[in-house]
């Protein structure tokens, strides 16, 4: 499975309109500027579209950071 972090970073850079944004597994809404609820919806739907996967609301509510999201994505992609 490819390293998802660089690909996720590109999605973040597009949505936050910031080509210099660096995302790590520890990134979350409290340490990334402008990561508000609407940006969050944009991120989740962009990931769902790009990878053709679907998240449940309960699954998303348990995520604490980008690392958790990547782990969930890997699980979803493995199930495809």
């Amino acid at each position, binding site marked *: 499975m490819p390293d998802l972090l660089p690909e996720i970073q590109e999605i973040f850079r597009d949505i936050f309109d910031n080509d210099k944004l660096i995302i790590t597994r520890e990134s979350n809404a409290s340490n990334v500027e402008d990561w508000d609820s609407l940006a969050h919806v*944009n991120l989740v*739907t962009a990931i769902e*579209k790009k990878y053709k996967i*679907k998240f449940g609301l309960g699954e998303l509510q348990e995520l604490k950071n980008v690392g958790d999201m990547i782990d969930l994505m890997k699980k979803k992609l493995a199930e495809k």
Partner: protein
Amino acid sequence: MNEYRWEELTVGLAYDFEATFTEEMAQDFARISGDVNPLHVDREYAVSAGFPSPVLFGMLTSSLYSKLVGVYLPGKYALLEGIDLDFNAPVFAGEKLLVHGEIVFKSESYRRMEIKANIRKEDRKLVSKALIRVGMHD
């Protein structure tokens, strides 16, 4: 006004309607927005720039995307959350515009959909196209 609920909306659901703008509407838009660029409100200037009459503001004709979402697809319960927009051709007062929108993506987790939409003239010439991100309220 349509009152679609989330469960009733499906990928492929589409809506079409027509609209026409007047020069008076363009004057109103200039007053409201503060964009008083003469290409849009000064006939003599527009003709000298090579156009048959003042060019309608792209953001005025694109307000039809707001109507599409807020009145028809999905209508009453819509939240317009974002729009990617391209302008393809100038429009002039009095021209009939055909608006088309279709749901192309639905995400259940946050109840977000995407609508691909376009505006064309009667001869099918593309005026603008948009990808619209839409949520729903209760």
